[in-house]
């Protein structure tokens, strides 16, 4: 493993034209990462040299487009250690992946009165699809509440399972707290209970090695754009035993065998779940992003991001009025530091940081129930927060500038320090 030190990070930044040499500081990587040149080149190369509608044409160009899409499928399968490429379904993003599984799996499994179990810290994309599924099937959506620092004990998890719990869905890494959850353990407990386990990998797959067979999760969703790939391409991994039985989500072209006036038979998995002309360019870009990450090494990436979070935490906790959500241990943050600043609204924090060229996320981070659940020292819910999230290409110097800017905000807003 080649460690990413400051020198190596500066070298790797050259792969990202938007930030290389820029005075701006991009630390909103949990929202989306910057795109590597090799990704953009791969997308361009596909459209310049191999573009045709895949799967349909009998001519050579269409065969090449098909092969490009299938090559990306094999790369994604290899990346998360899926047993076979057919278990990889391409979607637009993690949100669509979660909508797909929530719709089709609930069609397969749910009866009135059944229960779906999620956590209070889920991103809205792993919450609303289940709310909708529960409504459609007369099922009950239940929430596991975490501790204030985001931890969920095995005991707490077990206590929420009942014989009616058909589906459990939770994030491997919280997009707000950055905490990693032991989904291998939780999946095992869920399986013992006869429940299917769905994992939201949007914030884990780009940052830590993920092996779906070792974790033994039944489904895993992630997005390409959070891992240096293009927007508009995502993945749903699912175990074949479920994918084969689940009804389709979207219907139309490309996903059929035979269509009659009174019905249709559907194509084999994964095509059954990929209606319409697929996003070959996006898939090709995702494959390039996967190869790029593999060339750097996920171990090196996660080590670097942990170091950056640790360095930033040390600087931030010295600033009066800053409170970081979640664990006090930077190892439990996966490069995500969400915080409040006393007396100053997160949107004002973000606007003032923006004036210094620093891009952070402010607001509820698509996790409103969590924002209402986490309390400030005075007992009121935080409601909104500011989030800095790092990638391996960020530098200590950028964090120094971020901390220096952050330290000025209360004074700028008229609060004495």
């Amino acid at each position, binding site marked *: 493993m080649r460690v990413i030190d400051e020198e190596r990070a500066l070298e790797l930044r050259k792969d990202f034209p938007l930030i290389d040499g820029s005075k701006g500081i991009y630390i909103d990587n949990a929202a989306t990462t910057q795109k590597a040149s090799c990704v953009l080149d791969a997308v361009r190369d596909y459209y310049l040299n191999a573009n045709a509608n895949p799967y349909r044409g009998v001519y050579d160009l269409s065969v090449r487009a098909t092969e490009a899409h299938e090559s990306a499928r094999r790369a994604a399968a290899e990346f998360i250690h899926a047993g076979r490429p057919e278990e990889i379904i391409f979607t637009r993003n993690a949100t669509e992946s979660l909508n797909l599984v929530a719709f089709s799996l609930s069609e397969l499994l749910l009866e009135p009165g059944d229960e779906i179990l999620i956590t209070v810290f889920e991103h809205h994309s792993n919450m609303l699809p289940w709310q909708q599924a529960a409504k459609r099937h007369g099922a009950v959506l239940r929430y596991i509440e975490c501790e204030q620092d985001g931890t969920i004990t095995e005991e707490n998890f077990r206590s929420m399972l009942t014989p009616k719990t058909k589906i459990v869905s939770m994030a491997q890494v919280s997009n707000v707290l950055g905490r990693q959850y032991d989904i291998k353990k939780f999946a095992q407990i869920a399986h013992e209970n006869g429940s299917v386990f769905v994992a939201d990998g949007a914030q884990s797959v780009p940052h830590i090695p993920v092996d779906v067979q070792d974790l033994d999760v039944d489904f895993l969703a992630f997005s390409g754009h959070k891992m240096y790939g293009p927007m508009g391409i995502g993945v749903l991994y699912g175990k074949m035993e479920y994918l084969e039985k689940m009804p389709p989500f979207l219907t139309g072209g490309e996903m059929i065998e035979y269509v009659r006036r009174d019905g249709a038979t559907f194509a084999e998995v994964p095509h059954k779940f990929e209606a319409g002309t697929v996003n070959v360019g996006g898939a090709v870009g995702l494959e390039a992003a996967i190869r790029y990450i593999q060339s750097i090494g996920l171990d090196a990436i996660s080590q670097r991001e942990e170091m950056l979070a640790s360095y930033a935490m040390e600087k931030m906790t010295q600033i009066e009025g800053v409170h970081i959500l979640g664990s006090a241990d930077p190892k439990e943050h996966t490069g995500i530091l969400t915080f409040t600043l006393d007396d100053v609204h997160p949107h004002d924090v973000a606007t003032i940081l923006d004036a210094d060229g620093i891009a952070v996320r402010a607001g509820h981070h698509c996790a409103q129930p969590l924002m209402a659940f986490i309390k400030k020292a005075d007992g009121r819910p935080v409601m909104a927060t500011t989030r800095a999230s790092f990638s391996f290409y960020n530098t200590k110097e950028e964090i120094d500038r971020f901390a220096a800017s952050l330290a000025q905000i209360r004074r700028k*807003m008229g609060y004495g320090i």
Partner: protein
Amino acid sequence: MAFNTFYNEILTDHNMHPGNKHKIEDPTYELEGVNPSCGDDIVLQLKVSDDDTIEDAAFVGDGCAISQASADMMCDLIKGQKKEEALRLGDIFLRMIKGEASQEEIDELDEAGCLVDISHMPARVKCAVLGWHTLDEIFKKNS
């Protein structure tokens, strides 16, 4: 760029010491205004006489400095004004935010004119206009 001067003393002072952030006894009208995406939330209260004069204006709520200061400055401006005049000033404010008001018009807004640079900050426009939109809605609902 205007950013570094944007959070000026007028704005921060209205945010920290909002003179109109309190409840009115027996308000004639009351309406909640919310920006769901960022959580800004105010309740605007007006006391209006029979001849449509705004005798008192106040608000309570939570939100960013821009939303709270803007609502406070608005209350200062419309107190003692006729309804039509308040709506005319509101129209100037909204046009100022779109970059469409003249300097003479902006001068009429008094301290609220300090928010002119919001027109360069699209992400914060809804914060600045929350109070003014709520004012507009109050009169629409009660006309």
